């Protein structure tokens, strides 16, 4: 299982990685939408966790481009953002996201949402 976290905050990418450390998955990271598209194309992740407000290219633009790309459009996306304005949520939902989690969030909430989309298998105890 390969999961891509796209967020301009290293702290959030670290928290996402920490949330998944007990599960059998490989983490990839990107700090903005442009990097996110490049990493998505090269790594072909099973799931993308995407922030909205980022420099260079924001999450909404990345999501739009992702959905326009035949090779990437089927990758499920979970939004992870502080943006909860209802019009924006509706706009983003219509672009095609599998779920939406508003910051602040608990790690268990993130795991629950990811686990509903892709199979999360716990790592075997060492």
């Amino acid at each position: 299982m390969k999961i891509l976290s796209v967020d301009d905050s290293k702290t959030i990418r670290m928290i996402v990685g920490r949330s998944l450390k007990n599960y059998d998955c490989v983490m990839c990271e990107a700090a903005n939408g442009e990097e996110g598209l490049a990493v998505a194309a090269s790594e072909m992740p099973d799931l993308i966790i995407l922030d909205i407000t980022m420099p260079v290219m924001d999450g909404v633009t990345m999501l739009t481009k992702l959905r326009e790309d035949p090779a990437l459009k089927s990758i499920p996306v979970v939004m992870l953002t502080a943006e909860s304005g209802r019009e924006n949520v509706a706009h983003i939902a219509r672009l095609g996201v599998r779920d939406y989690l508003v910051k602040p969030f608990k790690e268990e909430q993130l795991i629950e949402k990811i686990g509903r989309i892709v199979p999360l298998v716990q790592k075997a105890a060492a």
Partner: protein
Amino acid sequence: MSQDLVGEDFAKQFGLDAVPEGVRRVTELVASQNASTEEIAKIISQDKELTARVLRAANPRAEDECDYTITTVDAAVMRSGIGGAILVAMSGPLIRAIGKTFETMLARPIESVPARSLAAFTEEHIAAEVAFAGKAVGSVQIRLEKPTARLFGAAMVGLAPEDFENEDELTDVLGELANIIVGNFKSNLCDAGLTCKLSPPVIAKTNDSKLRSQEGGLAERIGFVSGDVHFFVDVCVNPWSQA
């Protein structure tokens, strides 16, 4: 996904928190740009928390409720002016967002207290600011002393404070903390029709602890206590920037 669904439908589908009714009504009234003192007072009176905050703001010298000389919401709104009452009302959701952020991401409960009850920062401290612009213009600044910033940063990334010394990481944590808090506040503004966008966070060291106000707008400093440390949040907003 159906084009007939609206934002609230998607919010329910994704399990997002509902916007508190009192907050929504006050913010919408502000956005309508023709609120009267009576209308503001009526809505505030229907919300216990807003009522308590407006009364407290209208009695700045009172130690507790027994000392209040202004005891009704109508009189409090008259005293504070519509702008003052609106600011107090709008900062309610901000205080909730800050409390939820600290509890969820830092596992640190915090309590909001009047800023004047806390020692002001007279030495260099850190200000983490996120501005917003659009139909509403303003900014939110978190002001805290460096050891407090390190304590909070360490809690957010799950380290001991003595192991959290990297300046870049501290800047990133404070920026994200400010983003989360202001993002929630901005979403409430957008839901009321005051659409605006956030600027990237700016983290700076400063000796200037003066409360700044947005031109033509309103400003409030809110104090917070967490264990034996305290910090301030300054909010300044002009909800009528395009009036």
